[in-house]
C-alpha cells in the first residue's frame, strides 16, 4: 500500500503523540484542519487509523505501516548516523528536562517535596531561567535533527512557543497542556525511538 501526500506526517503524528484530537494533529503536522481531517478519514477507511474514545489513534496495521515508511524515509535520506548522534545528545538533556518539570511541580520545603503552588515568583523565575538555558542547549540538537530529516523542524517552534507562553504567565505550558513543553518533548523522544526503530 502506498501512502499518498500528507498521509505519513499524519500517521506519524499519531505514532508519536498517541491518541489525539484533530487539533493536536494539526499542531504536530502543520496541516490545515480540513486537510488533516480528510487525511485522517482516508487513513481510517484504509484500516490504519481508528477513532476511539473521541480521539484518533493507530491500529496495529497503522503502526506497522508507519514503522515501514519511517524506516524507508530515513534510509533514503541516508542520515541514520546523524539522527543516532542527535538522539544520544538528546538522551543527555532528557533527564534534566524531567528534573526541571519535577522542580516546577514540587519544591523542597523543610526537606519535604511539596506541591509548588506558584506563589513564589522568585522560585518560578529560577526554574524558568533553567528551562530557557536547557532550551538553548537543545537548539543544536534540534538543528542537527532538522538537517538530517526536515520533518523534525516542527519541534523547535512548538517547544519555543510553549516556553514563551509559560514565561508570560501561562503556567500550564510547562507540563499541564497537550501543547506543553513536557508533552512536546515526550513526543520528540517517542519520535526519535520510532525513527531509529529502538523499542522502549
Amino acid at each position: 500500500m502506498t501512502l499518498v501526500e500528507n498521509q505519513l506526517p499524519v500517521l506519524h503524528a499519531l505514532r508519536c503523540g498517541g491518541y489525539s484530537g484533530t487539533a493536536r494533529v494539526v499542531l504536530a503536522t502543520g496541516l490545515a484542519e480540513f486537510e488533516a481531517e480528510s487525511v485522517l478519514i482516508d487513513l481510517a477507511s484504509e484500516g490504519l487509523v481508528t477513532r476511539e474514545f473521541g480521539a484518533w489513534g493507530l491500529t496495529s496495521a497503522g503502526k506497522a505501516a508507519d514503522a515501514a515508511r519511517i524506516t524507508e524515509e530515513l534510509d533514503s535520506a541516508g542520515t541514520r548516523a546523524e539522527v543516532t548522534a542527535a538522539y544520544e545528545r538528546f538522551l543527555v538533556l532528557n533527564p534534566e528536562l524531567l528534573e526541571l518539570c519535577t522542580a516546577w511541580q514540587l519544591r523542597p520545603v523543610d526537606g519535604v517535596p511539596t506541591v509548588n503552588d506558584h506563589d513564589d515568583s522568585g522560585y518560578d523565575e529560577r526554574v524558568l531561567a533553567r528551562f530557557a538555558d536547557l532550551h538553548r542547549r537543545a537548539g543544536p540538537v534540534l538543528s542537527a535533527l532538522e538537517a538530517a530529516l526536515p520533518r523534525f523542524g516542527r519541534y523547535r517552534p512548538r517547544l519555543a512557543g510553549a516556553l514563551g507562553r509559560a514565561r508570560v504567565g501561562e503556567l500550564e505550558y510547562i507540563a499541564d497542556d497537550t501543547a506543553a513543553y513536557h508533552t512536546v518533548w515526550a513526543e520528540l523522544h517517542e519520535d526519535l525511538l520510532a525513527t531509529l526503530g529502538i523499542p522502549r
Partner: protein
Amino acid sequence: MNLVRPLSPLSTDSAELVGAKAHGLMLLQRLGLPVPPGFVVTTRACRAFLAGGRFPSGFARELRTAVAGLEAATGRSLGGTPPLAVSVRSGASVSMPGMMNTVLGLGLTTEATAALAAETGDSRFALDSRRRFLATFASATNDIETRWDRPVPDDAARQLELAIEAVFASWNTPRARTYRELHGIADDLGTAVVVQAMVFGNRDEHSGTGVAFSRDPGTGENTPSGDVLFGAQGDDVVSGGTTPLPLACLARREPAVWSELLEALRRVEASYREAAYVEFTYQTGELSLLQTRRAQLTGAAAIRDAVDFADERLITRSEALLRVSPRHLDLARTPRIAPTADVLASGAGASPGVATGMIATTTEAAVRMSAGAEVILARPETSPHDMSGLAAAAGIITATGGAASHAAVVARSLGKPAVVGISGLVVDDTHGAITVAGRSIQEGTIVTVDGGTGRIALGRAPVVTGAADAYPNRLLEWADDVSGDRSRRDDAGRLEAARTKIRASGG
C-alpha cells in the same frame, strides 16, 4: 597537602573537606562496623582541579602514597598480582543528578583479570567483574557533551586518574548546575572522591548487595526495610538487569549476614538518634557497609519516628517536637493506606493520594474499563501513547522510573496518585496480567495505590487520614504541654507555639 586523606576512624577531617559519604563511612568505622579500606580525594583537590583544569602539584605523589597504603593494607597490588580492584565513587551522600556516580572493579586490566581468575579459580566471575568495570568506566568517562570520549587504558594507575577526573569534571555538568541552582547548593563546594577496595557482590551465591532502612521510611514502623539483590552488584540496580527483592528475603537466605546487618542498623540509628539508611554488599557471607546517612522519611514516618524515639527514650519530647515541621503534619493528614492492608510492593511515591481500582495493563484497556469503574493503569514505563490511559485511570503504577519520570510528571499534572519504580513489578500486557512480589495478578483485580507513601495493596485497602492517627495527636498533645496553650487552633499553630518556646529556652 590535604589533597588525599585516609579513610580512618581516627580522622578529624570535616565533611566539607572529605565529603558527606566519606564522613559517614568514618562514622561506621568508629562504630566498629565493617567498611572496606580506602582513601578520599578531597574537595580541595576538586576545587584546584576545576580552577586549573588539571590536578594540582603534589597530587600525583599523594595519590601514589595513598594507593601504596591501600595495597599494603590489603596485601594486593593495583594492576599487579594478587590484583587490587577498587570502587571509585563521588563524595556526596545523596547523589546529585548529572554527576558521575560509581566505577566498580577499577584496576581490572587484562592482566589483573587473568590473575583474579587464577586466584579464585572462577574465570566467569573474573570476566563478569571486568565487564562491569568496562561498563561503569565507559559510562562515567564518555561524557557526550564534553566529548570526553577516550578508550579505556589498560594501565590501572591511569584508569584511577581518569575516573577521579571524571568525577571532578561532572561537578560542572549543566544538569548538576541546575540541581544546585534549584536546591540552593553553592557552586564552588566541589566534590570529594571515595576510593575503596572492592567488595564483590557478584562473587558467588553467598554474595549480594542492597540498601536498608532501620525503620520503614514510608510509615515509620520500627521494622527494617529495603531491597536486596542476590549475586549482584549495585550497577545491576541501575541497569535493571536483576530484580531487587524485599530486604526480609535476606533473613532466610543469609541468616548470619542478616543478623549482622540488623545489629549495624541498630548501632547507626543509636548514633544518629534518627532512622538510618545504609548501603551494603556482602561477599561470600562477609558483610561490608558502603554508605550511611540519615533516612529520608515521608511526613507520617517523620512524625511516628519522632514519637517512637521519644517513647524509647532515645530523644526528649522537646527534640521530637523540633524534628517535626508543620509541613510534615500537613503531609501526615493526607489519606494513606492503613498499616493493616495487604501491601504487595512499594516504590517511589510520585504523586500523593490514594486511589482504588481495577488493574489495567494497557491504555486501551484502561480507557475501555474506565467506562464502568475506577481503573489503575499498570505500565513498565509510560510514553505519549499512554496519555489517554493516564487520563482515564484513577491511579498509576510503573515498574521503572523515579520521581522525575514521564509517568510521575504526568500523574502530578493530572493530580492522580502514582507509585513509580516498583522493583519487581512485571507488566505482561500481552496476557493482561502483572506479577509483583511473586504474585500474579490478572487485569480487573482490585488494587489500591498510595502515591504518598509509595505502596500498593491488594484489594480495596482501608485508608487512614491523620485525624484518626494516634501519632500526630500525641505529638500535638506534647506541643500543648510545652506551650501551655490549650485554646482551639490549627495543628500548625499548636506545633509552632511549642517549637518557638523550646527554641527560646535554648533547645
